[in-house]
């Protein structure tokens, strides 16, 4: 009899261990019930104290509840991945609505091919986007990159991780105090020139415009505009970032002035 009880106990424990992974999944709630019964039997056969058994069962239940939560999260993640896969399969590039504050942020693992899509979505040449991503990634393994300075108001944020081609993209509403960067102005076309050390800088800098000093300037054409000046540094050089925003929300001037100071006067290069 003793041998039999021991055999059953060992078998039951082995089953428990073997099935533990499955057991943690709420889909196998029936198995949990079975195992509880087996444990109760073992307890009876081996004369385990009732209190100890209750503790053991509580622990099992706790693990079960935790695992249930985990599995639910995993299921959500799976669902999200399926949606993303469907989205990727769609050839037509659809513009994403920005996630409003409080909404769960959408996270998408972007493969190399998706970079092209993102580049199209944010109206950047793919090569420029890649250069930006690579430059940022080289400096910071995990870096926030984004906004959409040349097009609609900035709504994109790309968080880098891993290899050059993997980014974790979040859609997030970023409030920049302008409507768009005027593509016909120097701010528009010079910002895209990677060789231009003064005008080519990441759109993420624009996210800090709210912290810049804002001036109202009257031009020689007698039109009022807003000048934003922000102390900072670019590629290791201290200076100021400077934007001029027209009353209609267009940015016509966007530049970094090495050694510049916040003065309320644009283009003070000396």
């Amino acid at each position: 009899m003793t041998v039999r009880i021991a055999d059953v106990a060992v078998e039951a424990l082995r089953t428990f261990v073997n099935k533990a992974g499955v057991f943690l999944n709420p889909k196998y709630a029936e198995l949990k019930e079975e195992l509880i019964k087996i444990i109760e039997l073992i307890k009876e056969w081996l004369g385990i104290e009732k209190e100890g058994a209750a503790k053991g069962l509580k622990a099992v239940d706790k693990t079960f509840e935790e695992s249930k939560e985990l599995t639910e999260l995993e299921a959500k993640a799976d669902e999200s991945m399926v949606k993303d896969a469907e989205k990727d399969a769609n050839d037509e590039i659809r513009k994403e609505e920005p996630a409003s504050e409080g909404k769960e942020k959408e996270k998408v693992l972007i493969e190399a091919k998706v970079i092209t899509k993102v580049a199209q979505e944010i109206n950047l040449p793919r090569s420029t986007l890649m250069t930006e991503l690579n430059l940022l990634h080289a400096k910071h393994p995990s870096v926030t990159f984004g906004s959409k300075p040349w097009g609609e108001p900035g709504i994109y944020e790309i968080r880098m991780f891993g290899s050059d081609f993997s980014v974790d993209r979040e859609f997030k509403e970023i409030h920049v105090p302008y409507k768009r960067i005027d593509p016909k102005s120097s701010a528009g076309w010079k910002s895209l020139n990677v060789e231009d050390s003064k005008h080519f800088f990441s759109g993420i800098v624009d996210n800090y415009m709210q912290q810049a000093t804002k001036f109202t300037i009257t031009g020689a054409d007698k039109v009022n505009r807003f000048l934003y000046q922000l102390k900072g540094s670019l590629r290791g050089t201290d200076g100021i970032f400077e934007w001029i925003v027209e009353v209609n929300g267009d940015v016509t001037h966007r530049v970094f002035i090495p050694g510049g100071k916040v003065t309320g006067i644009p283009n003070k290069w000396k």
Partner: protein
Amino acid sequence: MEIMKTSLQNNIRLTWQMAYVALIKNFLSAEDVLNYIEPSELSGLDADTISSLYSTAEESKEAFLKTVKKIIGDISEEDMRKCIEKWSLAYLKDIYLSDQSIREKLHQIANVWAMFDYPEDWKNIIYYMPVTGNEMTSELTLYRDFEEFVNRQDEIMTRE
């Protein structure tokens, strides 16, 4: 900025030095240079160099630039500055001669200003640069200042 065909046809003698600066500054492509270079500049070259120009033009801009550099030899900072000034004046003349509205022209001038790294003496013809409340300015007075500026620069260049 669009390629300055007006300048190339009317305002500028495209020498190898001017072409070299234009290539460095991305004003012109290798193909543009070969299309618009002064015929006398080409006729002074031997057959091998001309052949090299056309083959490197097809290869890459960098290769073409090297060939042009071989033709001009060393270029002094002073010559470089003069070439850049000639180009900037050419751009301004293009704007001056264009049939755009005054407002459009003023915006173009600001673009060219950025293109040439904001020369200090242009500040008075930039529409967005602040003025004190007492100054009697308008788009029209600004444009007249621009006209004067272009004529003055042109005279200086001609004298040089």
